[in-house]
């Protein structure tokens, strides 16, 4: 059976524009005749023609993002199919938002390999909870007391905890799809980092 258009794109084969038969660099638009194509079934990585891995080159992601944005943005499609352009643009912006953020990117990778969502598995190690709780109290105390030095040192501590968890997440995300155990560990680390993020925003 011949591969479908989407499968061909996944395999990295060059696609042809249905309208002008020209080659297409992006699955979403034709550079020659400016035709747009729906992104049904394409994941965030595929929108940018990137391999689904944790380690992506931020400069490359940005370059692809700007390039595809130029192709599909409603500003350049005000006369044609503006609804498709609007939805593609929204999808692209969402994909970029997720992939540009190391935590959201790991979360997305976990979702792609069929890992549990935050709703399905809410587990957080008790020591993460107690550390976060303690730090928060100390930060509040330091703030009430106007103790800038204590505030600074607790802030540094909170950032260090965050960085450590992020490193764990990166390490686990690189192993995806991994086994059930590593997916569960990634899930727990992702649940944990939410507490650390919240602490940092409170600083």
């Amino acid at each position, binding site marked *: 059976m011949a591969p479908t258009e989407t499968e061909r794109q996944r395999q990295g084969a060059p696609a042809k524009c249905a309208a002008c038969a020209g080659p297409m660099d992006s699955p979403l638009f034709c550079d020659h005749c400016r035709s747009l194509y729906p992104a049904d079934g394409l994941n965030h990585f595929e929108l940018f023609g990137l391999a689904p891995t944790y380690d992506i080159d931020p400069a490359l992601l940005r370059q692809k993002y700007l390039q595809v944005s130029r192709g599909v943005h*409603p500003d350049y499609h005000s006369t044609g199919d503006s609804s498709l352009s609007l939805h593609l643009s*929204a999808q692209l912006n969402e994909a970029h938002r997720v992939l540009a953020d190391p935590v959201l990117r790991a979360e997305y990778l976990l979702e792609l390999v069929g890992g549990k969502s935050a709703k399905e598995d809410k587990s957080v190690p008790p020591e993460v909870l107690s550390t976060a709780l303690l730090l928060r109290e100390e930060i509040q105390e330091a703030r009430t007391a106007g103790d800038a030095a204590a505030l600074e040192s607790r802030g540094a501590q909170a950032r260090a905890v965050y960085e450590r968890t992020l490193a764990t997440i990166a390490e686990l995300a690189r192993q995806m799809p991994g086994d059930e155990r590593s997916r569960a560990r990634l899930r727990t680390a992702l649940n944990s980092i939410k507490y650390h993020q919240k602490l940092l925003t409170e600083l």
Partner: protein
Amino acid sequence: MDNGEIIVGIDLGTTFSLVAYADAAGPHIVRDEHGDGRVPSVIGVTPGTGNRPPQVTIGWTARAHAVENPQATVYSVKRLIGKGVADVHEDLPYLSYAVAAGPRDTVQIDINGRRYTPEEISALILRELRERAEKHLGVPVRKAVITVPAYFDDAQRQATRDAGRAADLEVVRIINEPTAAALAYGIGVRPESTAAKTPRGHVALPMARCTSESGGALDQTGQTVAVYDLGGGTFDISILRLEEGVSQVLSTAGDTHLGGDDFDRAIINLISHEIRERFGVSVSAPATKQALRTLAENTKIRLTDHDQAEFELDLGRDRVYRRVITRAEFEGLVAPLVERTITLCEHALKDAKLHSADIQQAILVGGCSRIPLVRKRVGELFSRPPYTALNPDEVVALGAALQAAILSGQRTDMLLLDVIPLSLGIETMGGAMGKLILRNTTIPCRATEMFTTFVDGQTAIQLNVLQGERELARDCRLLGQFELRGLPPMPAGMPKVEVEFLIDANGILNVAAKELRSGQAASIQIVPNHGLTRDEVDQITRDSLRFARADLDAHRRIDLLNQVEFDTQKTVQMLAKVGHLLDDADRVRIDHDIAALRQFAQETKDLDELYRRLTAFGHSTLRLAELGIREAFKKGT
């Protein structure tokens, strides 16, 4: 250009509005014969007399007569648009016109018993700009890009779009002012050498001109810039990445209630306080409020270039209030306002995950960015002199014209990627704000949420859509109530209704809903808050259609004749009141000028000449008008 149809760019400002267009050479401001592109965002309504209906004046004329006509002169309407009365209560003591609550928590303006919506007033300004552009370009203008403060919420954006529709303009895009400025900056728009010299006017206000010193070289390859936009009524800070022709907003912060008006009020408060202390009189009469406003504005502008401003108010009955305000004193008064803008800059930097040292250029926009203290503090924050080479009054309109060129297909070398300034969400059970789209998300953007029913056979679901950053729904802004109707009757909890919240490139929310089990689209009934219904917008548009269809020349002739009548009549009244303060020779000359202008107006067909003479008349009676303002003070207090 697409269909050969021109799209103009409009900066609809709190104090001044401008219209611009782009051609192959770049963007251009449409200027009056004095070289001034600014149209004061002021509307005056003169009461009808006998069989003459009330007349509307717009721009410099309305502004010039503000003191004589305080209750029927509307200014700073941008601070009211898309808001409720409770939102603007701090403004009310400073307005010389009456404001009342309208339906659906809107603000209305009451002039001689007739209610006007802020959309209607804005539409009058837009219409004036449209006609100005049509006259200059010689073709009908039906489409526009209109700028709004980046921090405008959905209701304010919708209201601005409605004002455009009411002015018979298709608003093809709403863009943010700082982003527009960045667009103009990004393509290296240079200050025009033909820039305005003097503003036209019956009461000429000394406006500080933009200085030409620049804060650094213009580097177009990948830089991060901050646009600091302090206008007449609003403040925005936007952090942008300019790269490969794409201007991407990384974050924005602001206050739609912080601008030049507030700087003026700091001076007004000082003067009113001292007058009360010294003479035991309070400044409350509309004419006095209006005159004080003009005085405060002039003082603020004077202190931009001078170390002190001196003024004198004759309060009548041998009471004279004299005052010298030094720049240092003024800076002391407004420092809290400036610090608020600096704090907002810090918020924007934090949201962009950047430090001030990452900013390669700080671009100043808006008339108030000329204030030396503002320049100093912005320079300190970003550790570099701000970039001031662009005229802060004009750069936003130029950017709007560039965006218009993009949308018309004229330019394909630039793209704007903007963000939503405030988080969007829905009220959840228990009155919390459930955020669906976070602030500073790039637009267009989209979020979906699933809903179900609580009762068997329920066919409708009501949602309260909110905008804001606070945790509780009641602390956020209610954009409107969305009622999903026509759900197929099912047992409670069975329907799966997917609601799509889509923010388009205008930053305006569009909602669609679908019941997934049946695949049936649910209809959505929207009750907007702080805005007009479609019917109301249509009504305003119908009301104003007669203007749109009228032959432009005939319309202009009527306007000019009315203006001649209005100006000469005012001058006659003023002569009667304060004429004795003039030399005999001056009085005789003005008498003669009045008769000559009236006669010429009746006889001529040359409208441009009539306009020139009307303007000259305004200049020759300037001294008299100033005496009139002083007189108003004596009467008012």
